[in-house]
């Protein structure tokens, strides 16, 4: 620890927590001084969320305690009442209530004697005060949050946290829904709050460059333990990766990245796997793009730029206008089945809501898309073929599971994703469309998935993926398209791709705003 611990610091001492037999967090020490911005990084499964939940008072540790100014806030037997007046948390999954207005979300949870009235004027002034204090333009306090794009909702949560009067603010992956300019604002706001108001800020992120720019001190978690802790200037991003992932995995990712830039270039004679002309759907406007056979094309863009409309329309679940050609033949994607018959395979992002079929076993989950083929007699399932299929897929994707008859909830996020990927790829096709394929998945599984994508491209399929992780895009794709306000605003080929280049384009899209005219009509506010 560089500085001596001040008396008003927030301290986690020797925190351990296990779930079932699994140790999630093991002897973690973390000290956040007042007036510092403290970064917390680590891959999924490293124990970050557990640490966050313990600091938030949602979980009691099995050992250790959280202290502040000689008071024990959290211990195995006790959680301080009104903890959130001291430590406020902006959670990753978002806590804005869509049916309520901005003003209502801001004041919700404040102590009131019931049933007192909530006057519009009071809400308006609170909203104005809170936003202005952070240098933001003031929105309409009676706007319904269901109509706000995700970035604005996240900003609302951040504003709420900073205006709540708490001494420590914990931000868990806030930049996932923010575009680069807003992330700049956030970083600046964090620093200002730390310097001027002496708040202690904990910034959890998996984006190393943000952590570098935005924090003073960094703690790195791996496998539930602290593997590095110290000032930000004292470590390079490369070293951070080494600590986060451990040496072997860093090497595997390095290998995988060599493979990506390998020989599979597009075969220029045959018609492209996918060609879109004048494609319009929801927020996506007049998009023209192509994916050659054997090519991996990545799409970048902050949430809400039309990528969800584009991808889900390609999956066949949204109506669109424009021309879609697969290997030179025009097709009409009227439904998911039509898209599947045309050869489009699809992997959605939201595992829980759109992927995992909870009451069914792991084996059953794998088979859903191809159940029609696993039969001896039409209409009758064949156990033998099903067994074969499941085993084959298990090996192909190296899925760690107890057995095909156990349930999905027993699997880690990464393995669940592998099961869903196996499902999506089980009906052979020519184009693979993936929406955030490595969300919530640890680095080891990410590497596996990248390898799978590379395989698919090598086999001659076209791959189109969207990811909010620009590092991933630059690692995996042969070409990257950037979406801004529903249109393709930039395109990069593999030599020029690097994360910074992509981000610049994304930042630059707001210049495009002036050229393209007024905002697209919000049919789908949550893209």
């Amino acid at each position, binding site marked *: 620890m560089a500085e001596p611990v001040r008396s008003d610091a927030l301290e986690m001492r020797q925190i351990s927590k296990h779930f079932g037999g699994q140790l999630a967090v093991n002897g973690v020490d973390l000290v956040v001084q007042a007036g510092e911005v403290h970064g917390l990084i680590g891959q999924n499964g490293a124990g970050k969320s557990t640490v966050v939940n313990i600091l938030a008072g949602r979980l009691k540790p099995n050992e250790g305690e959280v202290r502040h100014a000689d008071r024990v806030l959290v211990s195995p037997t006790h959680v301080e009442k009104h903890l959130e007046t001291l430590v406020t948390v902006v959670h990753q999954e978002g806590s804005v209530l869509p049916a309520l207005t901005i003003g209502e979300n801001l004041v919700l949870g404040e102590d009131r004697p019931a049933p007192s009235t909530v006057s519009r004027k009071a809400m308006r002034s609170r909203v104005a005060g809170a936003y202005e204090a952070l240098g933001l*333009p003031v929105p309409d306090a009676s*706007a319904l949050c269901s109509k706000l794009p995700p970035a*604005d909702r996240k900003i609302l949560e951040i504003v709420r946290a900073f205006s709540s009067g708490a001494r420590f603010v914990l931000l868990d992956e806030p930049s996932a829904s923010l575009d680069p300019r*807003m992330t*700049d604002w956030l970083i600046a706001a964090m620093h200002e709050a730390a310097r001027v108001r002496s708040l202690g800020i904990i910034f959890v992120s998996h984006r190393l460059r943000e952590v570098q720019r935005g924090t003073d001190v960094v703690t790195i978690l791996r496998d539930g333990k602290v593997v590095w802790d110290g000032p930000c200037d004292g470590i390079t991003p490369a070293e951070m990766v080494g600590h986060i992932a451990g040496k072997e995995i860093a090497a595997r990712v390095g290998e995988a990245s060599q493979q990506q830039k390998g020989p599979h270039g597009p075969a220029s004679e045959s018609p492209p796997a996918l060609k879109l002309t004048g494609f319009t759907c929801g927020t996506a406007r007049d998009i023209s793009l192509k994916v050659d056979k054997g090519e991996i094309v990545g799409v970048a863009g902050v949430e809400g730029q039309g990528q969800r409309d584009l991808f889900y329309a390609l999956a066949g679940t949204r109506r669109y206008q424009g021309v879609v050609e697969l290997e030179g033949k025009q097709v009409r994607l009227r439904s998911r089945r039509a898209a599947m018959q045309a050869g489009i395979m699809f992997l959605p992002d939201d595992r829980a809501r759109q992927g995992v079929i909870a009451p069914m076993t792991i084996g059953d989950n794998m088979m859903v898309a191809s159940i029609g083929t696993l039969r001896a007699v039409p209409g009758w399932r064949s156990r033998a073929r099903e067994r074969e299929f499941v085993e084959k897929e298990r090996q192909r994707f190296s899925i760690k599971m107890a057995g095909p008859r156990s349930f999905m909830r027993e699997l880690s996020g990464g393995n669940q994703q592998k099961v869903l990927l196996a499902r999506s790829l089980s009906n052979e096709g020519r184009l693979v469309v993936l929406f955030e394929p490595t969300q919530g998945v640890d680095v080891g599984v990410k590497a596996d998935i990248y390898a799978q994508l590379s395989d698919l491209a090598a086999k001659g399929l076209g791959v189109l993926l969207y990811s909010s992780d620009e590092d991933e895009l630059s690692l995996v794709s042969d070409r990257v398209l950037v979406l801004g306000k529903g249109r393709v605003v930039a395109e990069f080929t593999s030599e020029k791709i690097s994360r910074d280049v992509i981000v610049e384009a994304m930042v630059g899209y707001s210049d495009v705003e002036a050229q393209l005219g007024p905002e697209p009509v919000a049919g789908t506010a949550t893209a």
Partner: protein
Amino acid sequence: MTQVYRAPTPPTVRSVESRYRASYLLTQPTLRVWVLAIGLLIFYFALSPSSMNFGSLNLLTENALPLAWVAAGQMAVVTAAQIDLSVGSVMSLSTAIAATQMGSSGVDVFGTILVIVLIGAALGAVNGFFVAYRGMSAFIVTIATWSIIDGLALLVLPSAGGAVPNGFANVINTTSPVSFGAIALVVSLVIWMWVRTTAGFMRLRAVGSSAEKAHWAGVAERRTTLMAFMFSGFAAACAGLVLAGITQSGDPNIGTSYILNGLATAVIGGVSLFGGSGSFAGVVGGAMVLTVVNDVVFALGLNSYLEPAIVGGILAVAVLTTGLGSQGSIIQGVDQ
């Protein structure tokens, strides 16, 4: 880092639209249902000019009252993203108790009224307990309590009959100069204008929007859900009392049709089956719509069997045109 941060892109919320522009107003469910109600009323008067007088308006509000009240209870529960199928049997039970237990003295009347609404609230609390504190599906719990309360009603009053004291009946049945129904509706609307500004109603909407997020925002979501069910039972009991007054008797089966009609009224009145939004003013409008439809069917000499079909049609139109093309099923709650 002491850089001055650049003003970022402003949040993309439309500046407050002129709230008086026609296109905006027409999207407001409450306004639309009232436009529909008034339109139907005019249609009705056109069909039967002899009814164009205050007397029939009084009768209309009188008949709409029990429906509006039971639908108000449904609205509270649906706003919390739940459903209550036991309201009909609570109404039946209320009429049964009223028709058998209500003595004629003033004290007796008020005493019985108090007991009935307390029973309604208590039964609602049972529903609320199982749904909020035991995590059971509201649908199946309220089907079970529907059966239980029906049983209670049958035990109290095995078949339609009984009698309600005259004093009570007369008050409820006043139709001139203004009907009891109209007065009661106006009073409830006034109370509503206050309720919608309370923090409690905001918490109800929060819970309906997302119980989990409301929980983490500090809302006592289980207690809020419990109170919603208690209110539903209370409202159904009040509606039952009015019915008892109107029919001047009790009937253990009278409430069954109010389950669908109550839900329909709420939905037509703009309450979203997803939870999180709803207005009692819209509910009253919906009650008026259904009641006028009843009269229109009669006036047109149509077979009364067509009434469910017409209600169903209006319901479908209401649900579809609110832009919530797939309102989602109450049971599933899954949506694309």
